[in-house]
């Protein structure tokens, strides 16, 4: 197994910078997700990994092997990768077995060995019964499983997945996610998974690269991304939460994680609670602080808030609160709270974001 290394890769289409100086070091056998809003360059990056696009700058290596740089470009057929497409890309003029067997055939394998491999690959995705069907007769989930079988039949070291669940309905997605997890565990291949759905990426990947406007925003595990996002944009993109704008307190330098006591002190200091009006320091540097909804409790004492909206979400209620200085705050509650009522909240944990957006 070899690691996939992306060094300072850029891609330009005319004047448009699709990817800017992106660097990632992907460990062998890692499940990696490229996430970002549409148009962020994640698909372009994937296509450069596959070899469908040439890099404008930088280099891509797999182990010791150079895949692409500005001078050299290894064509896709020599990269020994697999790819799963959003549209499945099954060849309609071939049967399911022929589709799966095509990569094997191209490697010059025939006869019993060929048939055994195709049978095994189809067995892994539980589609042996459909070997002789046309792919056009299969359902969306079945087609995606055929595409997966086509990938694993040659045991490639890297498998690329381009929004593989985007065309499936919500129910099928859950079972296909399980299918991908299983696939990863079984093959041990390096998986690079492109999606615009952060929830999908969080639940599948070992590490996530979040991209925006062609640039890498953060490259970390799902837990780190959720707890310690670097920027305000990222904090809003991943998970739910509220962002407070707090000034540096006297003698306190805000950085990184903040515990409840410090947070409450600063919040009071900032005038989020009208009780301490006389000590308010309105001037000075302000920093954005992320508070996730699970870190907000309704208590007897604390910051004053008004319930603007209370939405039933099944397992809990989602409260849209409004602090004294009109800062919006999102909190959860196990029981219904009437809209318009006044409550008090305690913040138990926060994360100080980089200034700016």
């Amino acid at each position, binding site marked *: 197994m070899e690691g996939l290394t992306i060094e300072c890769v850029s891609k330009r289409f005319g004047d448009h910078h699709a990817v800017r100086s992106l660097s990632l070091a992907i460990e062998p056998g890692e499940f990696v997700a490229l996430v970002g809003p549409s148009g962020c360059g994640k698909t372009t990056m994937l296509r450069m990994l596959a*070899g469908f696009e040439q890099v404008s700058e930088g280099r891509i290596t797999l182990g010791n092997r150079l895949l692409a740089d500005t001078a050299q470009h290894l064509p896709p057929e020599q990269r020994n990768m697999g790819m799963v497409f959003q549209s499945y890309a099954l060849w309609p003029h071939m049967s399911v077995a022929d589709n799966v067997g095509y*990569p094997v055939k*191209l490697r010059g394998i025939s006869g019993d060995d060929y048939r055994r491999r195709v049978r095994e690959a189809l067995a892994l995705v539980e589609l042996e019964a459909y070997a002789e069907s046309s792919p056009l007769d299969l359902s969306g989930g079945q087609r995606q499983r055929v595409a997966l079988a086509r990938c694993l039949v040659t045991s490639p070291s890297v498998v690329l997945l381009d929004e593989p669940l985007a065309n499936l309905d919500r129910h099928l997605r859950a079972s296909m996610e399980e299918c991908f997890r299983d696939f990863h565990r079984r093959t041990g291949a390096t998986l690079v998974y492109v999606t615009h759905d952060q929830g999908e990426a969080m639940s599948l990947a070992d590490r996530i690269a979040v991209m925006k406007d062609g640039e890498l925003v953060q490259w970390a595990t799902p837990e780190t991304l959720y707890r310690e996002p670097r920027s305000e944009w990222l904090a809003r993109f991943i998970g739910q939460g509220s962002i407070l704008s707090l000034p540096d307190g006297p003698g306190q330098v805000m950085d990184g994680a903040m515990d409840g006591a410090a947070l409450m002190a600063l919040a009071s200091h900032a005038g989020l609670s009208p009780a301490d009006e006389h000590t308010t320091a309105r001037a000075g540097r302000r920093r954005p602080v992320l508070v996730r909804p699970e870190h907000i409790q309704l208590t007897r004492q604390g910051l004053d808030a008004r319930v603007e909206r209370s939405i039933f979400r099944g397992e809990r209620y989602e409260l849209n609160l409004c602090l004294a200085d009109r800062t919006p705050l999102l909190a959860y509650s196990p029981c219904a709270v009437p809209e318009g009522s006044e409550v008090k909240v305690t913040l138990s944990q926060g994360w100080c974001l980089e200034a700016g957006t």
Partner: protein
Amino acid sequence: MTPVMTHGGQQRWLFSLLLILIVLLSLVPSLRLLVEALSDLGQGTDSPLWRVLSAASTWRALWHSLYTSALGMSIALLLGGVFAFVITLTDVRGKPWLVFCFMLPMMIPPQVTALSWLQLFGPASPLLNSLGIAPALGSPQPLYSAQGIALLLGIQSAPLVFMALRTSLLSLPRELVEAARISGARQTQVWGHMILPLTRSGLIAGGAMAFISSLGNFGIPAMLGIPAGYFVLPTLIYQRMASFGTGVLAEMAALSMLIGVLALAGVALQQHLMGRSRFGLVGHSGRPHDFALGRWRGWMEAALVAILAVILVAPLAALMVSSLVPAMGVPLSVETASLEAFREMLSRQGVTRRAMSNSLWLAGGAAITLMALSLPLAYHLQRLPQRWQGLAISTIEVPYALPGVVLAIACILLFVRPLPIIQVTLYGTLGLIFIAYLARFLVVCVKPVTASLAQLDPSLEEAAQLAGAGPWRRLTGIVFPLMAPALFAGGILVFLLAVNELTVSALLWSAGNETLGVLIFNLDEGGESVLASALAVLVVALVAGLMLALNLLANRLPKGVIPWKD
């Protein structure tokens, strides 16, 4: 998808009128022909059909037709296939110009193509004479042969193959090719394993269209075959009609039916084969995989330009040279060059001016009339159930799918006697040609409009309806402005085809009612090659100018309306 509408009485009445018009224009001539051809079967061996079927000349012409069309189709498949694959799938440069130049031969009238090639070869060729490489006098003109006819038929119909294949290549999802590449297939393997099987329907469609259009072509076999005594079915009919007049109408009807049946059999076979090889393709289409040609790119571009130079530039250059020499056989030089032929054409020859005004009036009139008919027709067709819609479209397609000779004979049959009640004879007047043009080109004008209407979101009209607009208000205020570009494009296409039309008018013209197409043909037959060339140069300029005008309109039109744009 179609919005539910309650047609008022007036609507229903208008619709019935339109339907009757379609049937009259599209079906009645063919039915009349059928009746004539099958009449008097009771006379046994004396019946016209029997006489035609037992004549050796019929079977010879039939064989000639099949031979030249099949050979022409092969040439068209080769040329069109190479251009479609290279231009659509590889990274050659200058694609829009390559496409435009390759499509031009389709729009140039066949008799002009034939004329320009005749000027390119043979001992009298002004171009070869000017270059000093003309063959000795008395050596044969190589184009006066079956192979010559097939070559020009191939060049003329290659754009049809190109268009059909390009459409099918453009709808080929990029992922299917990429999946093959990443599975380990080299560029050349992708070609054989994926692209060819997946675009088979496009190849079949293109080949069939090339065959059918070659079968019905009149201009090329007339200019190249008649001097050599080589007759195909359309020229055989023309020859008989020219020699014997309306006396042999019944036999000609039988012969026409023979071509008609051949053409329709071709259409049926094509539909059958295409139905078997069409796949529902999913994925991102529109920008198929770019094959990197690498260091071969320059060579490939040079090869394409060279082909275009041979099939387009050289003949047109020969035509230009011919139009500038004082007489055939005189080499062109600075001293001998003269615009005398153009001056003669435009000022002294009364017949030229008459033919020009006839053609412009006919084409312009047909374009405007069909534009006026198309919008309400397409609008109502849209609201028919799917099955009826398909049937109606097929009906109006019949006069265009049938070879022009067939329609011409059918129109003669229909109008050779005075019309009942009003006692007006249309035979021998421009009116007959006009009606034939309306029938033949209706589908050319309706197709872009239906394509454009199909793209129109029904909710636009529904919103207007909720706002209180009645059917007429909606048609004029909402639908018409949105359809105007497509309608206009359809009109220009009709004009382009009609102004150069030869096949129908060759049988329907009479003294005083010449069209441009007939005039070029007659001038060349009468040995006036220089004058014919001058006129042909003007015609080519007109065609290229109109095509460029349509290009300017291109980005306001739905895809596929302009044949040479995508």
